[in-house]
C-alpha cells in the first residue's frame, strides 16, 4: 500500500471510531431523556394492549444491548425510523431539512471564501497600506461580533422597519418545493438575502484574516526575493505568492463548512429557516425523539466527514506533505 493509501485508511479508521463513540453517546443521552414516547397516546383511545404493541413495534421493550445493536445498525444505514409527530420517515424529513440548510449556507460560503480570500490576499500583499489597515480592523470587529445579534438587528432594520425583505422562512407559503424550483425562484433569493448577509458578514472574516496572514508570511519568504531578482513581472510574483498563501485556506474551508453546518441553529431560528438546526430545536420541544436523535447524528457526521475530506485534499495539493 502506498503511503497515501495507508494514511487515508488510518484517518478513515479514526473517523469511524469517533463516529461510533459519538453514536454511543447519543444513544445514552436519548435513553436518559425524560418522557415516555408512548405518552402521546395518552389522550387517544388506545388500549393498553395497543400501547404495548406500539412499544414492541418501536422495540422499546427489548434489552438494552439489543436495542443498542439495532440502533447502531440503523444509524449506519441511515434508517432513522418514523417521526413521532410528522407523518414521514425521519430520513425523508432530515434529507429535506439538510438540503434547506445547505441552501442557506452554500451561497454564503461561496461568497465568503471567494471574496474573503481575494480581499485577504490583497490586504496581505499591500501591507501597511490604508486598505490593509481598514480591512483588518473591520474584519476583527465583524469576527468577534455575535452573529445572532447582528441577525436580529438586520431583521429589525431591513425587514420590520424598512420592509424591504421578508421577515423569515425560506420561501413563501405555497412556493416551489423542488430544489430546482427553489433555486430558480426570485422568492428564495429574496428570503435568502438577509440570512446570507449576516452569515457572510461573519464568515468572510475568516478567509480574510487567514489569507492576509498567510500572504504576509509568504511575502517574507526568501523565494520571493529570488523571484524579484529573476526580473519577473509583479503579476507573476503575486501568482507565486498566492499559490503558496492559499494552502491553509483549503483546510479552513472544510472546517468552516463543518462548523457552519451545525452552528446555524441560531440563525435558522431567528429567520425561521426550515433547516436541520431548527428542526432539532423543534423536535426537542415536541419530544420527537427519532428526529432529534437523527438530526444530532447527521450534524456530527457531516462535521467529521468534512474534516476528513479537508485532510485528504490538503495532502493532495501541497507537494510537501508526505505520508509515513
Amino acid at each position: 500500500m502506498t503511503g497515501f493509501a495507508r494514511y487515508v485508511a488510518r484517518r478513515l479508521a479514526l473517523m469511524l471510531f469517533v463516529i461510533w463513540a459519538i453514536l454511543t453517546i447519543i444513544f445514552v443521552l436519548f435513553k436518559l431523556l425524560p418522557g415516555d414516547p408512548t405518552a402521546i397516546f395518552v389522550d387517544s383511545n388506545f388500549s393498553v394492549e395497543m400501547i404495548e404493541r406500539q412499544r414492541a413495534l418501536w422495540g422499546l421493550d427489548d434489552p438494552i444491548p439489543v436495542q443498542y445493536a439495532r440502533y447502531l445498525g440503523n444509524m449506519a444505514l441511515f434508517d432513522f425510523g418514523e417521526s413521532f409527530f410528522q407523518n414521514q420517515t425521519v430520513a425523508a424529513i432530515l434529507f429535506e431539512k439538510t438540503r434547506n440548510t445547505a441552501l442557506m449556507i452554500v451561497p454564503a460560503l461561496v461568497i465568503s471564501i471567494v471574496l474573503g480570500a481575494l480581499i485577504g490576499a490583497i490586504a496581505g500583499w499591500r501591507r501597511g497600506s490604508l486598505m490593509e489597515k481598514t480591512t483588518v480592523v473591520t474584519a476583527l470587529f465583524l469576527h468577534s461580533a455575535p452573529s445572532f445579534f447582528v441577525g436580529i438587528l438586520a431583521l429589525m432594520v431591513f425587514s420590520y422597519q424598512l420592509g424591504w425583505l421578508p421577515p423569515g422562512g425560506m420561501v413563501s407559503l405555497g412556493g416551489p418545493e423542488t430544489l430546482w424550483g427553489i433555486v430558480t425562484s426570485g422568492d428564495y433569493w429574496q428570503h435568502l438575502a438577509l440570512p446570507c448577509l449576516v452569515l457572510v458578514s461573519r464568515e468572510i472574516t475568516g478567509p480574510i484574516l487567514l489569507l492576509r496572514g498567510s500572504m504576509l508570511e509568504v511575502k517574507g519568504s526568501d523565494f520571493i526575493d529570488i523571484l524579484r531578482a529573476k526580473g519577473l513581472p509583479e503579476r507573476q510574483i503575486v501568482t507565486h505568492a498566492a499559490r503558496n498563501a492559499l494552502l491553509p485556506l483549503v483546510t479552513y474551508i472544510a472546517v468552516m463548512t463543518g462548523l457552519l453546518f451545525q452552528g446555524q441553529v441560531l440563525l435558522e431560528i431567528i429567520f425561521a429557516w426550515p433547516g436541520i438546526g431548527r428542526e432539532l430545536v423543534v423536535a426537542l420541544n415536541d419530544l420527537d425523539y427519532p428526529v432529534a436523535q437523527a438530526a444530532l447524528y447527521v450534524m456530527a457526521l457531516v462535521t467529521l466527514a468534512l474534516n476528513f475530506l479537508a485532510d485528504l485534499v490538503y495532502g493532495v495539493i501541497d507537494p510537501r506533505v508526505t505520508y509515513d
Partner: protein
Amino acid sequence: MALLEIENLHVSYRTPHGEAVAVDGVSLALEEGDYLGLVGESGCGKSTIAKAILGILPQAARVAGSLRFAGRELIGLSVIELRRIRWRDIALIPQNAMNGFDPVYTIEKQLDEAIAAHADLPAGARRERIAALFAMVGLSPDRLKDYAHQFSGGMRQRAMIAMALALDPKLIVADEPTTGLDVIIQDQILERMAEIHATAGNAMLLITHDMAVVSENCDRIAVMYAGRIMEIGGTDVFLSPLHPYTMGLCNAFPDAARREGELISIPGTPPSLVDPPSGCRFHTRCPFATARCTDEVPPLIEISRGHFAACHHADRAPEFRDQARDPATWRTATP
C-alpha cells in the same frame, strides 16, 4: 570601464532603535571575469550589498551613492529597466537555497520561468537549455520534475546555481552559497563554481564569512567590517594582510598544518549598526589601536600595488602580523 562599479554606497534602515547603517560608504570595482570574494562577520552588511546590486532591498531601506553596471547607474533606475537587467545580466545565488525555490512549483518550472522572462526561446529550446544547465552542475535531468523539498541541501544549491547560469549572466553574485552545508558538499559546490568561472568566464562576487573559502577560490579579496571595507586586494590580502581585522580573520580559521597552538579568535562582538564606534570601526576590538584610531576615520588607501587598506598603522603591518600569530596579543585587546 569596470563591469561593476560601486562608489560610496550607503544603505540604511529605519528601525525602532534608530537608523541602522548596514553599508557605510563602500566602494568596490569588479572587472569582467573577475572572481572577487567579499569576507566579513555576520551582520557586517555583505548581504545588503548583494541585495543592493540586484535591487531587491526591502522597502524600508534607504540607498545613496552610486552603483554602476556596465556604465549604467542602477540606483534610481526604473523597475522596468531593472527587470531587464535582472537575471539576464546579473544573477543571484542566495543564502539558504532551501528557501530560494517556490515550494509548490517544480524546479523545472522555475528554471523555465527564468529563461522565458528574458529570452524569446520556444519551449523546446528552453527544455534543452534547462537539461544542459542541470548537466553543468552535475544534476540528473530526471530530477527536473521534482520539488525543492525533495532535493538534498547540496543538490538544491546546485539547482540554484543552474538557475543562476540560465541566461549566462555577466555577473553572478553568490551570497553565502555554502553556509549550512557540510564541508564535503561545500567543497563540491565551490569546485563547481570555480569550474564554471573558468569555462564560462562570468564575473563572480562571492560573499562569505569564511576566509578559507575565499583564499582558495578568489583572485581578489575584499574584507568588510561594520559596513565598511577594511582591506581589498589580491591574494596577498590573505598571505600578507595589512589590516588587523584581516589578520584576526585569518587566525580564526585553523590551519591543518599548524596543529599545535590554540585557536585564536577576535574577542568581542560585532558593533551595533545603529550606534557604531567612532573613528575606525574596528578600534574597539583591535589589539593595536591607538588614540588616533578612536578619533579619525582611516581612509582606504593603496599601500602596495593593487592592495588597499583602511588602517592608520598599515606601515607597521609586518610587525603586527607577527604579533597577531600570538594568542596573547588578542587577549589583551579590550573590547
